[in-house]
């Protein structure tokens, strides 16, 4: 957001000693995550003299939570039941119930796969899904993605993270740095890092050295036990890179020797044979990638790894990271809430890198639950204060599924539907939603909706056939059957917006339907289209 500020802000901060939050100053570790989150956010609000927006209403919060946890809007029946419930504990119960569903795993797998694999032509969805089902800790997933899973001789699992990038070591180095450690070292490739004086070309090529011995052969990857990265400094000097982590720590390793020409020929021949017989090369006795795991997870050092995943999940659920940009988590770019990030990173480390635990804590905080509404006559406080909920574009996956749920007849999702059957029907919607989702752009920072999207929704037969077609399971057909116009209008709004209608909306609909009274079925299709394509459906607010 407000990106124009970043550069000048960073130059200003480059001279400030950054406080990273020493453990003894932090809130006790026994506090719940949601308490810690609200404590630190409220402290910053008080310091800045900003009043937080009130909590969002039940139905707004239900929609937001379901989109984040299970990737879709509530059905009208779910919305009405939630609104009617008088259980004081209903919010916590909702979160825990949603997190126990198969849809939770599907939604999180889709998001994590998009995070890890966007920009490659491969998917880790199967692996991530299986891992999330067992709540595999994030550090273990990191290990499996970088060095491979045990018993995965076919290399079809986690190692695809490396395999899909093995042809381009620079991309692999950059992506691993960004996705696991929250830092983009590629700025230090051709010259020392312009914003982080402590990062030099040595850091970049040191990080690259962890991956430089990785090679691909046919469908598989392997790792050599020799090879040194050589690079040219800005001054034109040629240098051998040392195996160096982001902290500047240089790792000692067994001596390696460049093989002679004959040995190299033999090696090449062996690889050719492996390629022909479609076999994976044997594992290296000494692996630099394994050293990255070791140093990356080492306790007591600057916790890049824990901070990065905290920031990623926070960004996804709150619409903005505690550090922005997400790939600039270094000493010279201060978090909006340094102590909170330190507290959450510590919690991540002491609770086995449990992603569910962090998600649950964020979603149950008051900060997550604030309304996104803001009086337009007053200046909006900075996003980094999290005083008002940030409006987030839906991912193609969320939007595709939600449109299908919204366009389905409420009778397709009756209130008494059994949980299994509900999930089956939702899965149908998810599958069907992918068609439209496939035409949409995955939203990045400062996402702008393209005119292609508006044209697609306005004029393609895809939208007409999938969302507005006739059929007893479709909303427009159902609406045209309802005799009382008022009832039909209320049904439409509940189904699409998951809330009761506003008078203004009823008046507009009434006028539209009245004007097209001669063709009620057609009129309802167009009215449903107008509601489905409005901003309220497109965003998580």
């Amino acid at each position, binding site marked *: 957001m*407000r*990106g*124009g*500020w*970043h*550069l000048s802000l960073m130059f200003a901060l480059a001279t400030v000693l950054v406080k990273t939050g020493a453990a003894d100053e932090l809130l006790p570790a026994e506090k719940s995550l949601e308490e810690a989150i609200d404590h630190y956010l409220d402290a910053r609000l008080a310091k800045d003299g900003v009043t937080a927006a009130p909590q969002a209403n039940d139905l707004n919060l239900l929609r937001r939570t379901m989109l984040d946890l299970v990737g879709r809007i509530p059905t009208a029946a779910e919305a009405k039941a939630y609104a009617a419930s008088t259980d004081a504990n209903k919010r916590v119960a909702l979160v825990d119930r949603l997190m126990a569903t198969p849809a939770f795993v599907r939604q999180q797998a889709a998001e994590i796969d998009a995070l890890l694999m966007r*920009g490659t032509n491969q998917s880790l969805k199967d692996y991530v899904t299986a891992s999330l089902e067992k709540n595999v800790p994030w550090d273990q997933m990191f290990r499996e993605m970088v060095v491979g899973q045990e018993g995965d001789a076919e290399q079809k699992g986690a190692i695809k993270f490396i395999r899909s990038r093995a042809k*381009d070591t*620079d991309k692999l*180095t*950059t*992506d691993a740095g960004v996705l696991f450690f929250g830092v*983009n070292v*590629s*700025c230090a490739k051709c010259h020392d890092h312009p914003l982080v004086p402590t990062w030099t070309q040595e850091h970049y090529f040191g990080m690259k050295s962890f991956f430089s011995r990785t090679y691909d052969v046919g469908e598989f990857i392997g790792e050599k036990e020799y090879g040194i990265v050589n690079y040219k400094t800005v001054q034109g000097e040629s240098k051998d890179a040392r195996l160096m982590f982001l902290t500047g720590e240089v790792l000692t390793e067994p001596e390696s020797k460049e093989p002679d020409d004959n040995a190299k020929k033999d090696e090449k021949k062996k690889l050719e044979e492996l390629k022909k017989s479609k076999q994976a090369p044997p594992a290296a006795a000494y692996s630099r990638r394994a050293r990255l795991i070791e140093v990356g997870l080492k306790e007591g050092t600057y916790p890049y790894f824990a901070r990065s995943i905290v920031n990623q999940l926070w960004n996804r659920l709150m619409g903005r990271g505690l550090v*922005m*940009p997400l*790939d*600039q988590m270094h000493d010279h770019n201060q978090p909006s809430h340094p102590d909170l990030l330190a507290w959450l990173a510590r919690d991540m480390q002491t609770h086995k890198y449990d992603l569910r635990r962090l998600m649950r804590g964020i979603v149950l905080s008051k900060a997550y639950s604030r309304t996104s*509404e*803001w*009086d*337009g006559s007053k200046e909006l406080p900075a996003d980094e204060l999290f005083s008002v909920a940030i*409006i*987030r574009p839906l991912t193609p996956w969320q939007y595709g599924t939600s449109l299908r749920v919204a366009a389905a007849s409420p009778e397709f999702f009756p209130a008494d539907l059994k949980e299994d059957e509900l999930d089956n029907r939702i899965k149908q919607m998810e599958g069907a939603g992918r068609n439209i989702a496939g035409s949409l*752009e995955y939203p*990045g*920072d*400062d*996402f*702008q*909706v*393209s*005119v*292609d*999207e*508006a*044209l697609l*929704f*306005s*004029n*393609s*037969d895809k939208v*007409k056939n999938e969302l507005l077609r006739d059929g007893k399971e479709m909303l427009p057909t159902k609406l045209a059957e309802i005799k009382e116009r008022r009832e039909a209008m209320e049904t439409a709004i509940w189904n699409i917006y998951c809330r009761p209608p506003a008078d*203004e*909306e009823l008046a*507009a*609909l009434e006028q*539209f339907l009245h004007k*097209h009274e001669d063709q009620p079925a057609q009129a309802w299709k*167009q*009215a449903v*289209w*107008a*509601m489905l*394509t*409005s*901003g309220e459906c497109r*965003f998580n*607010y």
Partner: protein
Amino acid sequence: MLNSEIRNSKFEVASRRTFLGASAAAAGLTFAADMTALNALQSPVLANELKKNDKRVILLWLAGGASQLETFDPKPGRPTGGPFKSIQTSVPGVQICELLPKLADRIGKYTAIIRGVDTGNGDHGSAARMMHLGRRDEPSVRYPDLGAMVARELGKADSQVPDYVSFYTATEGRGNAISQSGFLGARYGAMFLTEGNSPPNLRRLEEITDLDHQERADLRRLFSDRFARTRQSASLSSHNEAYSRVRGLMASEKLFDLSQEPTPMRDKYGPTLFAEQCLIARRLVEAGVPFVKVSRAWWDSHGQNFETHLELATELDHVMSTLLDDLQERGLLDHTLVITLSEFGRTPQINASLGRDHFASAWSVTLSGCGIKRGSVHGKSDEDGNKVIEGKVGAPQLFATIFQALGIDHQKNYHVGARPLPLTDPGTQPIREVLA
């Protein structure tokens, strides 16, 4: 809308729109907290910002790699020369291949030839990417292509016509047809014509009347505005802006309809697909579309180079000449830059199949019209065309020259996160000799 856009745009603060009105400029200043804005506020950049009003680009993309020897840098009589002669152009001392007689008459009036292009990449895919992006791909940054950058710089937020239209031909193949808006986002992506000469989703479906289409859009607006009234978000605004452009863009469909063009004009361009697309390109720039790319394929003449070029260069000669004349007669050429560009040229050596292979060490590009010193020639290859001996030019300089010709500051920065990314790589200089 303007304020929120300025405040929220990651990429730049001082957009062209900022300079269109004093109040808008002041609003821009309030938020001008980054280097871009500070740079942009210094003249002569400010002057350029004002000057570049209504500039347009037509890119003629010669997919597969056109031979410089059979077009703009012939070597007659040399072992590498091939069977075609060279002919005198309207510029004394400047000769081009005899396959281009019409262009030869027009070089002095319209065009600069850049002969010393050395891009060092002979691979179709990555070279084509480089010539679209003006730089090498980088693992961590997805750069926008020329069309997206021009759309960003010259397009208008509320424009009723597309900002960037890209035609590809069946022979080029979609896989090779590069188009990426990169970090600028889909807002500046190409309207891609994948089938026929009309863009997808521009035409109303038959099942809905025009009135219903309009009325449901009005109803949509009502719902959407009600929702947005109590919320502030640049992303949310962009959603409504995109929908508000739909009706205008649909009205622009007639621009793609050649039956609206008088028969004598259609006859002038000729009956080929490339000719038709060039005529549509002219209609588009006339209506205010900032960037149109027309691809002609497939110039990749590993075998039968001379037959291939007899056909393709002859067509290029006729169509490009007609296009330049047409733009000139309508008073558009002073505002419209016409570029011929490929991923690379072709080897001076003629192979056993009488073909020429990929060659990126000494090839040619032309720039015509807007901002160009017409009749100028920059750079020189050696007598056999093996290497550049004078005025070597790479992709970044070429792009800097294009931006300068359009009055766009080629050193201006976009920002991705904290990282400033100039339109062309730092230190790049435009080719002054070909700029007016």
